[in-house]
């Protein structure tokens, strides 16, 4: 029987946009149709083709045995690594922090090689930010810098940033908004911004382009070593100057090309002295920002920490450095696949140490793990809260029942067994 849950909205956990207007049709206990979510969201919500099995050393077992074995590995390890968190609810993240505290572990999430520096600057009050709802209602100049939401966050432009009509932007994109794309290539987003709104710069030159914009905004000649058309830079600075409510969406392209955030701070200060500008990081995984917020609340740092008698923080405690230096002797991976996402030369060390994976689906990392514990799919099979890319907390409801435990329950039981 097909039940249409009309006007009963759920939250999509496909990316950090956390779209909260999703309707579903159920048949028994499985999702048969998802309304309004993008292709990426539907793929996540409909679950994985190959669910993870509960196993210890490759042999199927029950959850209790796997949890006991996981606790044994963690308590025997001197310096365990606890990594992942971006695909876990905030409640599960807090349990993971508690486990790290108890076992004196290295704790890191994907933000250490992603949007971490930007979120840290926002939490420390160094960058002016706003919410996506404010963008929808008020933003007139929208800059996508090193970001391609058409690929990474498909509903970004249609739900918040460019196309919708908002309170002070009744005419939507046609007359009330200007979209600018600054990137190293002509992305799908650049196609929408058009030739006039697209600025292609050489890779790694973002800092220099920021300096040129600051010069242009200060009524000086904007010079660049890569000889970018000065007239076009001045056209852009004129648009930026006239903005009533501007927003920069900072993508990974921007984060990766900056050695430090000083040029970005300088640009934002200058922009805010001539007009009004905000910045929102284009966070990928649905609750990566939540992980930063939770670790920040507990330790004062957003990522890369080592628990012991005191909390240590620094680049040497990042997942990449910890694995490269072989400083850890066991690993607990929650909702992440480092063997696929990190360079093999770094991640290979994971196969040499006792490895525990908690995930709804089979991954390359889970296939090399000593202990695998399947968990419920957050936002579909379990509820909780998560933090959207703009820092707004969103509550997720459970849609269907499952006999698998949520990652929060699994981590609570590991914590109890320690």
């Amino acid at each position: 029987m097909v039940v249409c849950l009309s006007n009963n909205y759920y939250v999509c956990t496909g990316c950090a946009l956390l779209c909260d207007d999703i309707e579903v049709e159920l048949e028994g206990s499985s999702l048969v149709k998802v309304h309004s979510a993008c292709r990426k969201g539907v793929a996540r919500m409909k679950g994985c083709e190959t669910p993870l099995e509960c196993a210890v050393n490759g042999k199927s077992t029950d959850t209790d045995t796997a949890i006991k074995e996981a606790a044994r590995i963690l308590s025997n390890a001197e310096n365990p690594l606890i990594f992942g968190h971006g695909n876990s609810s905030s409640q599960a993240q807090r349990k993971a922090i508690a486990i790290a505290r108890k076992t004196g572990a290295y704790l890191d999430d994907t933000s250490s090689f992603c949007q971490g520096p930007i979120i840290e600057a926002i939490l420390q009050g160094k960058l002016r930010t706003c919410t996506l709802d404010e963008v929808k209602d008020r933003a007139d100049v929208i800059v996508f810098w090193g970001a391609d939401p058409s690929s990474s966050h498909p509903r970004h432009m249609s739900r918040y940033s460019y196309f919708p009509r908002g309170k002070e932007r009744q005419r939507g994109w046609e007359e009330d908004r200007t979209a600018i794309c600054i990137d190293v290539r002509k992305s799908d987003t650049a196609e929408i911004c058009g030739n006039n709104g697209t600025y292609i710069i050489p890779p790694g030159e973002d800092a220099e382009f920021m300096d040129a914009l600051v010069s242009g905004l200060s009524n000086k000649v904007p010079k660049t070593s890569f000889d970018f058309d000065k007239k076009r830079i001045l056209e852009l600075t004129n648009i930026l100057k006239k903005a009533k409510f501007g927003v920069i969406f900072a993508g990974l392209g921007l984060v990766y090309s900056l050695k430090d955030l000083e040029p970005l701070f300088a640009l934002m200060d200058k922009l805010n002295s001539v007009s009004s500008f905000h910045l929102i990081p284009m966070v990928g995984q649905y609750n990566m920002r939540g992980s930063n917020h939770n670790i920040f609340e507990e330790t004062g740092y957003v990522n890369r920490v080592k628990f012991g008698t005191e909390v240590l923080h620094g680049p040497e405690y990042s997942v990449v450095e910890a694995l490269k230096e072989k400083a850890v002797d066991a690993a607990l991976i929650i909702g992440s696949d480092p063997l696929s996402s990190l360079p093999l030369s770094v991640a290979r060390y994971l196969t040499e140490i006792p490895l525990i994976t908690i995930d709804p689906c089979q991954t390359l990392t889970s296939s090399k793990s000593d202990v695998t514990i399947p968990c419920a799919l957050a936002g579909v099979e379990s509820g909780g809260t998560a933090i959207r890319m703009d820092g707004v907390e969103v509550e997720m409801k459970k849609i269907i029942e499952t006999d698998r435990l949520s990652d929060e329950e699994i981590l609570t039981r590991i914590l109890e067994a320690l």
Partner: protein
Amino acid sequence: MLTMASVMEIYQLLPKTNCKECGKSTCMAFAVDLLARKVKVEDCLPLVREEKYRANYQKLSEIITPVGDVTETGLIVHEDKCIGCGNCVVACPVNVAADPFGAGSGKAPTSDKVILKVEDGIVRAKNVEECRRFGENKILCVACIDTCPTKAIEFV
């Protein structure tokens, strides 16, 4: 901005001999019908038969994508290209008029009168007779085509 294949583009790839083997009087007439999907690329016999047209035949086959489910009014959604971003849903002027606080404001459509709606990650056309490109007062509206990042919507 994105554009669809034009008649001239198609004509340039045809043999341009006006051989009439397809039953049309000229190659230009064939190009017009091909754009409207009234005939198939394979209906041009010399193009398929002769070696010298091989490259043009391949190129035409790529331009003229199979129609699949064409709505009565000629709107095609190429499902393999659509990513379900919903740009067209929010941009469509008919959707905005029918559902200003749902589809027009970026949220899930709340009205049955909308033309475009995303289901299972792919945009579906409904009520297409309401589209501004059809009916007595038709205009050449391109809101859904221009805003599509992957060129997934086409009119024939």
